[in-house]
Each structure stands twice: as C-alpha cells, then as structure tokens.
C-alpha cells in the first residue's frame, strides 16, 4: 500500500551556506542561488515494496526529469534542464530502528554520488533530508 504526505515547507539554517570564493584575486562573498533551495518536500512510502520516496519542489516550475541509479539502492530524479534533484527514492527495512540510519545513508549517497546534479543543490537536498529526517521517519 502506498501512502503520500502533504507538501511540507523546508526550514533549515541556510545562513551557514554563505562562503567566500576568490576570482581575479578578489574575495567575493557568495550564497546559494534561491532557485537551488528546495522549498517543500513530501514523502511517499510503499509498505509492500519497502521503499521510501522524498520529493522536492522548487520556486521554478517543474520540468522533465530523468532517473539516475546510485549505489546503496538509492535512485534519484534530476531535472533535465536545471540538473536539480526532484526526488530521492531508497529501499528501507521493516525494522523501524534501522530507519534513521538508512535515511542518513541515503542523504550521504545523494551528496556524494548524484552525477550531473548541481553541487549547491545536492548539498541543499542532503541538508534538507538530514534536517527533516524525523518527519520522514514519521511518514513511514
């Protein structure tokens, strides 16, 4: 049986994402593009297949996506134009105690392996999953 939650706003500390880069010997203060910050997420769970899917929405309108298979049985969908991560899908175990660890692992895999995804966006998604892990667990 598949269940799906409502869209939930993403709220995490983005202040720490300000950084300095050096161009032409000048230190420039940069921050992530607002388009790369996921605005909301929802969780769908398949209790039969034991899979969990986290979808993300952005301020820009939706676009066509393609699927990418990552290690540790994690699957992501990437926007064909923007290369942003629109969903993260991974297998889970029946044992609920193992769930927090599995969510953390999926977030790590996304940050590490999502090829073609924008670096700043995959970091945002990784952080969003880590911040909202309790809500994701609750949905399962």
């Amino acid at each position, binding site marked *: 049986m598949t269940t799906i939650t409502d869209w939930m706003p993403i709220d995490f500390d983005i202040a720490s994402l300000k950084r300095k880069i050096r*161009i032409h010997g*000048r230190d*420039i203060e*940069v*921050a992530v593009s*607002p*388009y790369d910050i996921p605005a909301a997420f929802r969780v769908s769970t398949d209790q039969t297949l034991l899979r969990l899917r986290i979808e993300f929405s952005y301020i*820009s309108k939706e676009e066509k996506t393609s699927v990418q298979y990552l290690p540790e049985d994690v699957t992501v969908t990437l926007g064909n134009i923007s290369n942003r991560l629109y969903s993260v899908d991974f297998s889970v175990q029946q044992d609920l105690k193992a769930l927090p660890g599995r969510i953390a692992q999926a977030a790590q895999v996304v940050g590490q392996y999502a090829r073609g995804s924008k670096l*700043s966006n995959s970091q945002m998604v990784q952080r969003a999953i880590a911040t909202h892990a309790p809500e994701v667990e609750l949905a399962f």
Partner: protein
Amino acid sequence: MIRLNWLKNTEAYLRWGAVAAGSIAGALAFFLKWKSADFTGIRQELLAANEASVWVTIPLFTAVAGILTFFKTHFGTANSWKVATHLLEEYRKAIFQSKPTLDNEADHHNRVTLYKHVSLRIAFCRWPWSNWVVPVARTGHTTQNRRIPRFLAPKGEPDLAQGVAGLTFANNSTIIVSKLPALTAESSDTVIKRYARKGLVSETWVRDRLKRGSCSIRSLVGIPIEVDGKPWGAIVVDSRNPKPIIGIKELDNEEFKRLARSLAKLLEN
C-alpha cells in the same frame, strides 16, 4: 536603456509598421489579379510597374513585416515591462521596509534593477559585443536613465565577468557586496582602488562613473534569475547605505518566491 521607456513609443511603431508592410504585400499580390494589357493610361502604367517589380516588392514587404513582428515579440510589450517594474517595486519595498535607514534616505537611494543576459549587444563601444547583461527594468521613475551600466558576462568564462550583475549571472550564485568606501570627486587613488576591488569593477570604470558624478552605491546584492530552468539574468539590489542589504535568510523569503514565479511567467515568451 530600460525597456519600458523606449517601448512606450516604439511598440506602436513596430506593431503598425508590421501591419502596414503586411497589408502592402497583400495589396500588391491582389493587384496581380488584373492584367495591365486590359487597361489604358495611368492604370496600365501602375499595373505594369507592379507586374515588373512584384518579384522583389512582395518578398521585401513580407520580410519587413516578419522582422518587425520578430522585434515586437523579442522586446516584449510595454505592459509586461510595466508589470515587471511593479514586481521589482514590491520586492524593493519588502526588502527595505524593515531595514534601518540612513538619515534623509530617499526611495531612490535603494533600488532594484533587473538585468537580462544578451548574446549580442549592438552598441557604440569596443569589442566584445557578445555576452553582456543589460538593464531591462528598474524601480523608481527618477532613476531610469541611459547611464545604467551594462556588464560583461561571458557564459563559458565566468572569470571574465564584471560587476555584481555579470558575476551573479556567470556564477549562477547570489553575490553579496557591502561596506564599499564612500567616493567623492576628490577621493584618493587608494580609495578608488579599494572601491573597484570590493565592488568587482575596474578602476577605469569607477573613475568614469565619478566623472559623471554617479558613484554613490555602498552595498549591493546580485540574485540570479531563471526562466524555464535556465539562467536568464540577474536582479541587482543596490543601496547608498554601506550595511549589507539582505540577509541570507531573506533570499528565500516569500517576496522573492512571488517575484521569481511571476517574472518566470512574464518573461518565458
């Protein structure tokens, strides 16, 4: 030059020019219905002239109608730029209404400018003409003049980008500049150098602006703008107040989301 200003007059010329050229091409084709040999006098002469030149006049007027229609679509309508300016004004209010202001600070001391990236900029300037960000809309009716600067923003070579607008577009990241030194016509070379370095522009550019008496900006923020998932341009918020304009949390606020969504819909054509 801000699109709204020159489109107010040009839009009508482009529209009626296209209609006139299309109508002339249609009329010339219609007159081919009659043969000049069947008439005498002035009618015969006019029809004969049309028959002789129709191979060039019809394609010419059709092409003119097509070109004018292309430019009309390319530059958008005055109404759509009015809406864009209104959206920028709302965003400006949302940013600055909660900020502490300097004494005697006027509205035009805090501005928001929308820059568009263009592949080719035809201008009276030295090469390169390709890959610039040009201003297309700005808040405040008193600050919309021809002197709003344009910046180089090569797509493939972000290191060559200039100014906050150019670097924001080229890096597709938010760029924050604050605490720029105050400049006057008497400012020393050291201060000008520091301003240029912190403001991400060249010293020549700063000196040129000083000569024209307009280099009073003390802080800026550049935010990338996307349309259909692709980088389109940038919004630059500038202020005469040296304190940072915007906190990183405000980047992701509701006002920006509303602005980004509305601009995307407005600009996608």
